[in-house]
């Protein structure tokens, strides 16, 4: 079958328990979540969840429909390729002796990462970029000795004037 990654944006009521209903739905229906990110929107009553799902067209159609059946789900939209902007955020703590600091600063400069913390032996870098760029960044920093890495799920928004909001 045509297994592909799909980006689904979901507007939900900002209630306790909504996230567990959504994640429960995925496990119950056998859908695979690659990543999930959630945060409140400009309207404090509404949260937006971005889910990356693997599957064929039929699976994605079912994911959309089943999500729509949850009472607290306000809106569901699959963001199409070429019409969306996606970002992940990664924090990497590297083991960096004094003499290597400038190398790391160069890497940060080129990749667009920023140094958010520094100590005698470590540097912590932040990068907010697309998934492939985050992977590349990991590759480049790996040789310096990664002590710790934290990544968020992907969040996405539509290009141009298109929006996904709920008007009361």
């Amino acid at each position, binding site marked *: 079958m045509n297994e592909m990654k799909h980006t689904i944006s979901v507007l939900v009521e900002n209630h306790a*328990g909504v996230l567990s209903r959504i994640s*429960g739905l995925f496990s119950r229906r056998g859908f695979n979540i690659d990543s999930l990110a959630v945060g409140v929107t400009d309207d404090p009553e509404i949260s937006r969840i971005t889910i990356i799902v693997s599957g064929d067209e*039929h699976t994605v159609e079912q994911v959309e429909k*089943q999500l729509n059946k949850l*009472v607290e*789900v306000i809106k569901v939209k699959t963001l199409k390729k070429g019409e969306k902007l996606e970002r992940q955020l990664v924090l990497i703590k590297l083991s960096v002796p004094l003499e290597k600091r400038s190398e790391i600063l160069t890497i940060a400069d080129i990749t667009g990462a920023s140094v958010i913390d520094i100590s005698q032996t470590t540097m912590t870098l932040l990068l907010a970029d697309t998934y492939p760029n985050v992977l590349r960044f990991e590759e480049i920093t790996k040789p310096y000795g990664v002590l710790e890495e934290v990544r968020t799920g992907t969040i996405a928004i539509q290009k141009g004037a298109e929006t996904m909001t*709920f008007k*009361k």
Partner: protein
Amino acid sequence: MAEKIKVCKAMVECLQAEGIKVVFGYPGAAICPFYDELYNSNIKSVLVRHEANGGHAANGYARITGKPAVCIATSGPGATNLLTAIATAYADSVPIVCITGQVNSEQIGSDAFQEADITGSAAPFIKHTYLVKDGLQIGRIFKEAFYLAGSGRPGPVLIDVPMDVQNQMIEFSYPKSAEIRSYKPTSRGNALQVKRVIKEIKEARKPLLCVGGGVFLSNAQKEVRDLARRFDLPVVTTMMGISVFESDDERFFGMLGMHGCKTANRAVSECDVLLLVGARVGDRAISNPSFVEKNTRIIHIDIDPAEIGKNIKADIPLVGDVKTVVLQILKDAPEMSHAGWIGEIKEFDKQPKFKKPEKGRVNPKEFISRLSDVMGENTHVVADVGQNQIWTATYYKIKKGRFLTSGGMGTMGYAVPAAIGAKLADKKSEVLAVCGDGSFQMSFMELATAVQHGVDIKVIVMKNNYLGMVREVQDKAYGGRLIAVSLEGSPDFIRLAEAYGIKGVRVSDEESMDNAFELIKQSGPCVIECAVDDFESTL
């Protein structure tokens, strides 16, 4: 300023405002405040003997009235016992509102005595749940719960109320309507699609109508029958759609599927357009959807968009409420005739021949068929799960009454409690519960409920001394290695009935069959045990 009342009193007022006359339940400490307020009300409280059966009784009640019915359980084990009934109602889209007690708010999460996360446990198979944290929300929550349970694609909804919230003092008024911005079920069908449906059927040579349980949920029996008449369509049914058409309707050809009749299945494989109405194409109804997709144009009418295209691809999807959509279709549709095609199906329709049973036993299929001859035309029939269910679905000649069963979940033990609910909902009609000796033993404790509340149900137990359907599977697929299917050790069901103070008759031949039919005509609950060949087959 309005006078303050306890939340538990407000809960009773909510039920009264929703027109609830009967509740089925089982009390416990955490739901005592609410029960104490029911004491003061005119709502009839039926004590069941197991919480799951309270859920099934509400299920039977709701299906007969077409409105949400209520069941109640206490926290912890009371609530978890309800889960099977919730899953059963969810699978068949039956509107029940479950009210459970919960431990005090401050104890939630502490593994207190009789604490269970019931809203979390029920989540995968329930339409919606509420854990009431603030008593001031009680009116809105009840209004929403009843609205959600009964509207769109109906289903179970649960309200979990901690004990301290039940005792909270609030100013209360019941809202007139529910406004849920994220819940707007579609009832009217898309006009363009409606036109395409008419065109498709007009151009079809061998169209076939398949009705499902959605027809009842939409209360569209009359409209769907009108549709069959106007278009002159032959009709088959899923198990959930049995009794939309009377068995002797000239266009009706029985139940399709794994346990359906050959005529119906042949009609499905030979038709060129299949019109699915309120049927979700479950795997027991159509086991080879890809074959049907390839050879047939499919029109699918359902209120739940997620059901369209889930199990079978639809050429013409049409989302909407069955009644509304069928009326839209009938509005501009011409009369049609498919006499030739109906004649073809009639050709492969054969009258059943009943095999002669062993001495001292009766043929259950023949018994069911003859039973339907003696029952009144409004009789409701509740079939349990297993061979008894298929025998009843196939051989009971239904007239104006309903056929009820646990179709989606296949929950054994459904029949007796659901029959109690059905009878309380429609006291004028006779109600039969047909069980097997396996399923009857899952809920015969409810005979006490029937006796206690004077609920006049007639229970038929098909006794073949085995879990017959599983026994059949072990015979066919596991080389006859029968394990854990013998029901040896079962009680004498006639004496069991007598122990409950009701009458029983054992049917083992022609004469005792007549005795049974006589007993059934008398008032009061009774048990009829039907001695069936040990190895009688399902089909």
